[in-house]
Every structure is written in structure tokens, then in C-alpha cells.
């Protein structure tokens, strides 16, 4: 059974259709990459899956359970965590408190919160920070952290909710090549723990190296779904998204990688 299953998912804002009749599955342990021009509806798709902006058509199943109309906090409890395009964070709180929020509130519903967070929660938060190698930032105020740390912190607090599925929205936007490599490592480590991942990214190097499968959206619809290597052969993708130049560069990049591995 697929972990996540989107069936005919649509989202309209009045007359404007942001996502239209989108159907795809994500298998457990898989990494699915999503690309497409800005305004194609990628982030809206994440809003829909994570419940912040519920779908107006179709249904979404997680592990066979319908989560289409669930409140966002419920979806988080059900096992979907998300990172955001902008560097979201609780800016006046310390980094550790940011992760504690995920560890304490993200795992299950807390109707009557306890007086203290508890040992176990604190350990879970520390583990998540250690995994992303930001433990030394624990007592810094989040608003004052540099971009890379904020992105890693956002991932740590997502991990602390112990998700089955992690949605990452442009995790390397605005990072240097070196920093991209560090995030790539982190994503591989997360994946090794068995977390399924969907990531949106414009940096094609990142997308094709991490994804088992790539889905390209345009005007809210799926125009391509398949292995990353087939991306550069698809006429439509080249025409609406990559362009000839980017496509050629990607082709040569993948060629050199093949050569290096083969």
C-alpha cells in the first residue's frame, strides 16, 4: 500500500485553479521530487496535503486513512511534517524550544498539556538536533540564526514530530553550493531512518540526485512523472520548465555522474 495517495486532488481560489486533478502515489521509504515553474501549484499542493489550505476536490490518503479534510495539527499528529519555503521559525524562542514544540505537540494530541515537557520529550528534541548537527545552537535565539541553521532547525523540529512523511519546500533555496551539499547529506541521513520524503526544489542538481522519482507540475497539473534521468528527454518539460539551455546542462551533469559512478 502506498504511504501517501493523492486522488484527483484540486484546489481553487475562487475562479483561479492552483492545483487541478492531480493523482499520484508515494511508496514508503521513497523520495519524490517535485519541480515546475513558479506558480505551477507546487507549494499549494503542500498546503493542501498538510491541511493548511484544504483541497477543494479529490481526496488524500495517508496509510489508507482519509486526511483530506483533517485540521493541520491533526495531520501533523497523523505523521506528516513539513518544512517551509521561507525560513519559518518561532523567532523569539530558542532553537531548542523550537524543536521542543515539534517533539511535545507534534506527536500526539495534547488536550490537557502537562506542567512540564518531560524527559522523553527533551531527549527527542536533543536527538533531532544532534541528527542535523545543530546541537551547539540549542540556546541561541532563532531569529538571529543564519539562513542555513534556520533551515536545518526547521528540519529538526519537523523530525522531532516523528513523521512518516516529510514534505520539504525548497530546502536549499538561497544556499551556496557547499551548503546545498550539507543539506543533501542531512536529507540522506533522514531518509536512512526510514522517513518518506517529498521535496520541492528548483535546484535541479539537488532534485535529481536525491529523488527516486520526479513529478513536474505546470499550471496546477502533472506534466511529467518518472525517473529523474528521463526528465531531460521529455519535450514538454523542456518546453515549459527547463528550457533548452538548462536541459542541456542537466544532461551533461547527469552524464558526468554516470561516468563517475560507472
Amino acid at each position, binding site marked *: 500500500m502506498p504511504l501517501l495517495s493523492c486522488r484527483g486532488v484540486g484546489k481553487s481560489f475562487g475562479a483561479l485553479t492552483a492545483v487541478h486533478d492531480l493523482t499520484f502515489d508515494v511508496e514508503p521509504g521513497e523520495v519524490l521530487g517535485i519541480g515546475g*515553474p*513558479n*506558480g505551477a501549484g507546487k507549494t499549494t499542493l503542500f498546503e493542501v496535503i498538510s491541511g493548511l489550505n484544504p483541497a477543494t476536490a479529490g481526496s488524500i490518503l495517508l496509510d489508507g486513512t482519509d486526511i483530506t479534510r483533517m485540521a493541520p495539527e491533526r495531520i501533523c499528529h497523523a505523521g506528516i511534517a513539513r518544512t517551509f519555503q521561507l525560513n519559518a521559525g518561532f523567532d523569539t524562542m530558542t532553537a531548542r524550544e523550537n524543536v521542543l514544540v515539534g517533539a511535545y505537540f507534534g506527536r500526539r494530541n495534547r488536550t490537557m498539556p502537562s506542567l512540564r515537557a518531560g524527559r522523553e520529550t527533551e531527549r527527542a528534541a536533543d536527538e533531532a538536533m544532534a541528527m542535523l548537527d545543530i546541537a551547539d545552537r540549542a540556546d541561541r535565539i532563532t531569529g*538571529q540564526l543564519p*539562513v542555513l541553521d534556520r533551515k536545518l532547525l526547521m528540519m529538526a523540529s519537523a523530525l522531532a514530530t516523528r513523521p512518516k512523511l516529510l514534505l520539504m519546500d525548497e530546502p536549499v*533555496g*538561497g*544556499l*551556496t*553550493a*557547499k551548503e*546545498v551539499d550539507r543539506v543533501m547529506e542531512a536529507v540522506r541521513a533522514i531518509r536512512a531512518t526510514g522517513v518518506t520524503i517529498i521535496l520541492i526544489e528548483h*535546484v*535541479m*542538481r539537488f532534485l535529481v540526485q536525491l529523488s527516486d522519482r520526479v513529478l513536474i507540475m505546470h499550471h496546477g497539473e502533472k506534466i511529467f512523472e518518472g525517473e529523474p534521468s528521463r526528465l531531460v528527454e521529455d519535450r514538454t518539460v523542456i*518546453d*515549459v*520548465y*527547463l*528550457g*533548452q*539551455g*538548462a536541459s542541456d*546542462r542537466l544532461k551533461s*551533469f547527469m552524464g558526468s555522474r554516470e561516468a563517475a559512478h560507472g
Partner: protein
Amino acid sequence: MAEPVLAIRDLAAGYDGRRVLDGVDLVVPAARLTAIIGPNGHGKSTLLKAISGLVRVSAGTIALRGERIDGLRPDQIVERGVIQVPQGDLLFPGMTVLDNLLMGAYRQDAARDAGARLDMVFALLPKLKERRHQIAGTLSGGERRMCGIGRGLMAGEGLLMLDEPSLGLAPIVIDQIYEVIFDLCAAGRTILLVEENAQRITERADSIHLLDNGRFVWSGIGAELMARPEIIEAYLGA
């Protein structure tokens, strides 16, 4: 060499306490296309904002045709002919396309011949003429970008600064936008361009400057950059 349009010396700037730019030197010659490249989040937009007076300059000088403009208010800087087309367009969403364009001609001396300039903009960007009575907030991404550029052109002569005009656009639209930019260059306009994708401008830019971590680490012309793949690899990724 003739006096440059813009000369920046040892500039430092940033947001409350956090220094984003440190020790930036840059010269923008007249009637040339000067491009700034470099990874995101390392000060390219901040540099344009500092030139426009939106970000406070903490050290160094910015001179426009020999006259210092650092420390002036944004409106005074615009009045002297430094026009910025900001990243993400920043249109006036509740106004029509036409009103947006007319806002572009808010400058005293641009307001006088707004009519003629409007014809020029419509000739250059015919799509805007079709859409002139549409509310700007309802335009598509490519149309918004064109409206933003058209609004910048309405401000008249002077230094035109474009912050990532290709950001988030489909390649076909990017091609159209760059066609307009290169046309303006050919007509002798002085342009300062921020662009993430170096390949796109290497052949056309008169000089390219690589900004990393708040300072320029490499400057040269396009052909030189293409001959240094390690620079592209290290700073810009594939």
C-alpha cells in the same frame, strides 16, 4: 575613461546589527550592462536596496556621477535618477496596470512627458497595452514582471537597476524579458542587473561581478568567467 554613472567604495550595510555587505567596491559605467551574480542570500538585493536608500549604509560611499547619494532618502535618490525594479515586482495590487505605470512616472521630471513615455513602454511591451485596464493583482507571473519593468521604464532616463528579472518565470517568458533588456542596452541605457543564472548573461554583459558573503570575490567579462568553470562550480553550483 568617462565618469562612471555609479561608483561605490568600501560599502558596508545591513539590517539591525547584522552586517550583510562589507567592503563592497563597484563601478557602473555609462551605457553599459553591468551584472552582479552570486548565490542567493549573500547581499545582491541588499546592495541594490542600499543604493536606493532602503537599507541604511553604515560605512563607505555611493556616488552618482560624482555626487554622493548615500544617506539620502529613497525619494531623493529616485529623484536623481536611480530607478530600481525590485525583486518580486512589488506592484500596487489594487491599481490598474495603467495606474501602476503612471506611478512609475511619479518623479517630477518624468511626470512631464509621461504620455510619450507611456507610448514607448506600450510599444516595447505590447502585452501591457492589452491589459492596461486590468487590476494589477490579477495579472499572471510573466505579465506582472512586464508591468514591473514597464513601471521602471516610466521613470525616465537614468540608472536602471533590475533585481532578478527572471526569477520564477518559465524559460519562454525569461527569453522575452531578456530581449527587452538587451534592446534597452543596445539603445544606450545604463543598466545594473542582478541575476542568479550566470550563463544567461555571460555573452551580453559588459562586466560581471560575483558577490559572495557580502563582498565581491571576482570581476571580469563573460568570456573570462566561462573560462573559469571552478568559479561557477564553487559559487553557483551546476
